[in-house]
């Protein structure tokens, strides 16, 4: 078992991914985290819940990942002093996650950085919106919003503040550049602008309904989140969806990956000065979306994955059409790849730009596509292999350069691999049901969902409450791990390259603002 050496009392969670749950005291956390790290593990998620309605204090939750599986650790914190040791020296992503948990619940890692993260002006430090006794409809008195950015001083250093409203059609966030001449000395990110209270919103929703909200945590990853949510719920129910539903889920997940990669490749060409690329790739993406609309009833396949299975049946003809589309796409993308590869202007912009070294990526715990482009070999489709990836044999792609060029190559490689996987699904899929009804679910059960979306892994941790409702649900986006990497990647690059570098990561704001 992946976490045996920790000598904890662990129970295995039923379901699609290898996952275990255990409890520990807060004081033991640094040693445990350290041990997991030494064994090649990492922090996948960190969040808190309020248990005071059950006569307890708070619980700090950690999700620790190894290639073989996930450990969900719970540590009780007393209500009057909900403190726990700062884990950010061990796991870099803990920095912001701890600050977010403090903003919502008041649980405190007592880290050196006392600044809020999600809390801007909508509530004050004494308001704790995620507590059970905070009314979901309550609106708090506005606080002040004077975020203390780190200032860089020196001869000729000046600042460029950007956002939250950006110049293009993208999500809002604030970037503070400290530059000298045109070189970036430091980029500080301030996010949280799209915080919509998703964790609070989940509470009390019907378990069957929660999937719709999960599918709107980050719209471009709706399939990944819906699947992760259903995986968690099906783990609680100890029910497995029919085989055909699992194949269709994988098919949708790979189509989501293909569509997003196509769009990104178009925008990366455009940002590199080749508008031709945008027109070509967006045309291909539109074709994929139209096929989705025709076969699944939604261009982005929102609400197509439901607890117990899937909601749409493309049928034999539909699958054949997808197969034919794969062949056409493969030809077209190869052609465009040759054009990108041979375009000196584009390659000049891509190569060595926005480099994230493997060493830095490893220290930061970078995952997903951006991680793999910097030699971080994490892809749970090829590692923990939740069904049907146990049969599909996904081949992980990695690159060692970590520059924009590497992230472009990753996207090309992953499109080809996804096309292969889609064809493989069509080969393997058998006839049968596409959904089973889930049994009634008692309260107090916990389940975990873990899915490798196009950007990286989506994690959903779910606890059932009374009357088939959600007691708590937390969704974690891979962008938490990867946003800090962007700041390292732009260091020493010129400001005008920032849009290109940013696009090459294409991280989610909504997904981690929640």
């Amino acid at each position, binding site marked *: 078992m992946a976490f045996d050496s920790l000598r904890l009392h662990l129970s295995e969670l039923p379901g699609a991914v290898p996952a275990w749950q255990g409890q520990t005291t807060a004081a033991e956390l640094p040693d445990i985290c350290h041990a997991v790290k030494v064994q090649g593990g990492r922090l996948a998620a960190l969040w808190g819940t309020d248990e005071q309605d059950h006569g307890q204090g708070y619980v700090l939750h950690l999700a620790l990942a190894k290639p073989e599986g996930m450990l969900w650790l719970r540590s009780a914190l007393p209500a009057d002093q909900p403190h726990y040791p700062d884990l950010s020296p061990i796991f870099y992503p803990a920095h912001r996650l701890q600050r977010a948990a403090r903003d919502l619940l008041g649980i405190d890692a007592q880290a050196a950085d006392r600044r809020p993260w999600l809390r801007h002006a909508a509530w004050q430090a004494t308001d704790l919106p995620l507590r059970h006794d905070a009314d979901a*409809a309550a609106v708090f008195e506005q606080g002040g919003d004077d975020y203390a950015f780190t200032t860089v001083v020196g001869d000729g250093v000046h600042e460029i503040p950007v956002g939250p409203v950006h110049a293009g059609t993208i999500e809002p966030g604030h970037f503070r550049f400290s530059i000298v001449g045109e070189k970036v000395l430091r980029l500080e990110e301030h996010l949280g602008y799209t915080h919509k*209270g998703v964790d*609070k*919103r989940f509470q009390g929703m019907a378990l069957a309904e929660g999937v719709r909200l999960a599918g*709107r945590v980050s719209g471009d990853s709706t399939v990944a989140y819906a699947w992760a949510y259903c995986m968690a719920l099906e783990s609680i129910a100890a029910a497995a969806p029919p085989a055909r539903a699992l194949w269709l889920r994988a098919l949708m997940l790979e189509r989501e990956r293909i569509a997003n990669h196509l769009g990104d490749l178009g925008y990366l060409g455009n940002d590199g000065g080749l508008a031709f690329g945008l*027109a070509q790739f967006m045309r291909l*993406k539109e074709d994929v979306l139209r096929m989705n609309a025709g076969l699944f009833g939604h261009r982005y396949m929102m609400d197509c994955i439901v607890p117990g299975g899937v909601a749409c049946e493309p049928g034999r003809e539909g699958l054949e059409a997808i197969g034919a589309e794969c062949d056409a796409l493969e030809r077209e993308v190869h*052609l465009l790849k040759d054009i990108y590869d041979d375009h000196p202007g584009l390659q000049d912009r891509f190569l060595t730009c926005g480099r994230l070294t493997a060493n830095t990526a490893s220290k930061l715990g970078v995952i997903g596509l951006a991680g793999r482009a910097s030699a971080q070999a994490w892809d749970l489709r090829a590692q923990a292999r939740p069904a049907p990836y146990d049969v599909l044999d996904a081949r992980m792609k990695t690159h060692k350069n970590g520059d924009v060029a590497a992230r472009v190559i990753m996207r090309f490689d992953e499109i080809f691999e996804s096309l292969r996987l889609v064809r493989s699904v069509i080969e393997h899929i058998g006839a049968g049901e596409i959904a089973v009804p889930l049994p009634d679910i008692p309260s107090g059960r916990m389940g975990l969902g873990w899915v490798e979306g196009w950007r990286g892994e989506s994690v959903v941790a779910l606890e059932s409450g009374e009357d088939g409702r959600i007691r708590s649900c937390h969704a974690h986006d891979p962008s938490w791990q990867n946003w800090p990497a962007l700041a390292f990647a732009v260091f020493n690059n010129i400001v005008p390259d920032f849009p290109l570098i940013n696009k090459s990561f294409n991280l989610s704001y909504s997904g981690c603002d929640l």
Partner: protein
Amino acid sequence: MYQLLKQIVRVGIKTEAPPQSDEGLRLLNQRLQQEILGMFAGSLAIRHVDAGSCNGCELEIHMLSNPYYNIEALGIKFVASPRHADLLLVTGPVARNMEVALKRTYDAMPAPKLVVAVGDCGCTGGIFGESYASCGRVANVIAVDVAVPGCPPTPVALLQGILTAISADAKG
């Protein structure tokens, strides 16, 4: 370069008047162009603000610029500053953390200004509703001329919404 030119010629012009059905949408396009010509001298400048969306609506706004819908050919362009904009396209429920930024963007636009709220979230607050973190629908924060439902609305629905906003303005 030869490959690139060959690809352009091979793919040809993809822009279509009607994405699915024919005449209805062609009409729409002609009308849209006329409205734009009449009201905005052939050029409508749109500023988009994400006030807290899940990013789903943005994906469809992006698609408006693809060769099929080719929104720029209609004389509509997305601009980087609200000071250059005739119309504000707002997605998402308005996150309370974005309330001030949205109001400031709106204030920075020159009059007369049009506002189109996008998506179920923009229309009603959608699945996120109103809470400690969300002000709900866009109209709770700034004056909205037209609201386009859908989760997310298709590019065609977005075009219709923009058209409606312009024609409403022409009437009033």
